[in-house]
């Protein structure tokens, strides 16, 4: 089952790059929701116990928060277009390669059954943070944190013997939820 998990994680990483290239905020939210579905699929493939955690993670990261984001997106004051940052794609890819190399070196030194998820998850987290640093849209921070949360789910799936309390902390999107609540209130 680790092959299926690695495939789902790789697709989630590809969506992170798509997220950075998205030009409409509505499209970016949908990409983020699909990424959450793939992360939950990776959890399910790695037989995370209890099994409901993958479902809860998808319900929160893939349905509840994206729906709330779409409600904010559709408000009249919100621009639907993400500002373009010329020449930044090459920089993102360079950073992505660098971060992947660092974590890959780390996992090669300390191999585990799901080290692919660890490498890919860490890359997704860092790309999510880059999306925040871009500040290309008022909702970019919430999207970046949500994408990073998806990456953290993958990292957690690769962490052996993680206690239930830690799993709960990882599947609950506390930080993106806070940022979204703030954006909601300020609008």
């Amino acid at each position: 089952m680790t092959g299926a998990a690695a495939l789902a994680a790789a697709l989630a990483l590809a969506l992170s790059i798509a997220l950075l290239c998205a030009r409409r905020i509505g499209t970016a939210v949908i990409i983020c929701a699909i990424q959450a579905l793939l992360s939950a699929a990776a959890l399910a493939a790695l037989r995370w116990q209890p099994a409901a955690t993958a479902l809860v993670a998808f319900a929160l990261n893939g349905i509840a928060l994206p729906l709330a984001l779409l409600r904010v997106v559709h408000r009249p004051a919100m621009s639907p277009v993400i500002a373009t940052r010329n020449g930044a794609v090459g920089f993102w890819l360079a950073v992505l390669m660098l971060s992947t190399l660092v974590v890959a070196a780390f996992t090669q030194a300390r191999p585990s059954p799901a080290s692919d998820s660890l490498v890919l998850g860490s890359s997704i987290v860092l790309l999510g943070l880059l999306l925040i640093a871009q500040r290309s849209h008022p909702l970019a921070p919430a999207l970046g944190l949500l994408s990073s949360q998806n990456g953290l789910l993958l990292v957690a799936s690769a962490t052996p013997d993680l206690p239930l309390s830690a799993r709960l902390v990882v599947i609950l999107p506390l930080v993106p939820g806070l940022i979204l609540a703030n954006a909601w209130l300020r609008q």
Partner: protein
Amino acid sequence: MIDPLPVVVIALPFASAAVLALVGSWRIGIWINAGSATLLLLLAALLPWHLHAPVPLLHIGAPETQLVLLTSLVAMTTSWFSRRDVPASLATRSLDRRRARLYHAACQALVGAILLAVLSDNLMLTWLALAIAIAAAAGVTGAVRSQAAATAASNLLLLCGVGLLIALLGTLLLHVAQEPHAATVRWSTLQSVPHHLPALHLACVFLLIGYGALAGVAPLHGWLPDAAAEGFAPGSIIVGALMVNAPLLVLLRLRAALNPNPGLPAAVLMALGLITLLLGACCLLASTDMRRTAAFAGMAQIGMIVVAIGIGGPAATFAGWLPMTLLALARASVLQCHGLPPTQLAAWTRTAGILALAILPLFALFLLAKAAVWLLLPLGVGVLLTSSALLARLPIPLPSVPVPRGGDLSEIAALAPIWLQLALVLLLVLAMPGPVVDWFNATAAR
């Protein structure tokens, strides 16, 4: 047998926050806030007799107890300070009843979350407590009715949120780094559990950057001056002077876990500390507002403390830990002078507070003996800039119109908590009692 005292110390502020959220009257809220903070200080004063008490998920060590005492003392003086500031803000309409209730509840929740983060022995619980603290800090900062305060609260949420996510990534990597894998990672056993060294170093770098953001360490420091300068004055004392201490304790614990092979994380810690020190010192030179000045002075000194933690060893840790205590007291004193009526007595109190802030960088002299040669120049420049920028503001000028000498009963009651804090600073700097020296040595020896 579980010792109930630490649990009560943590639960009291949370229970008060729940009560304050329900109480509609701001007048009653003020008294519940002040009463709860005073009771908390009385209970916290008993903690030194409960060191290493057996409580699940908590660790009652010397540094933890010291931070609990410091937090509860400053929370108490601030709650008495807000007894004067809340009605004044209601009168100027920068607060309304709903916002006053939000401020009181969020303030107590913030104190409770800081105490939980400090006393927690579990990495995930610490993370969760700091997440609650960030949410409460945003509530405290944004309580006042102004666009600048709302922006400061948003910045705080965003930058600290990014820090929390990076710290969570580091915590998960720390789980992976343990050999053999353990179900839970505890602060008290982090040093003794064997780790895969490169994995530990990578995890620690993420943890240092993540928790560093919550302590106001560069590059994610931008929230701290805004929160201290734009937020509601009493709330900004708790956020700016107390909340940063819990992540600094985490940095201290991580540095201890890295012994005897500090490697890359210690270098990262020193580099981040130096950047914060120099950045804070440069901003201090350009600052004109008193609250922002206190924030930049604090930022510069947090940088110095981080450098001290990065250097490691008992002497350097002593040189970082003592200023951290003094900084919280001095910053709280300066910020509590905000909004005082312009009398000679108040001006002299504020001058004493700035002077206390200005002499703290001199503790870096302890570091110079232990620091590497390449550290001496930037450390010395940062310390000199910080001290000279603060000393250049003295004495605090009085208004050109004749001002009263001050000294009536209500003014003395308002100034008494500030004098208490400044007296503690003076005592710790000039004549630290023997048992207190032993206490700091026990902390530094970790």
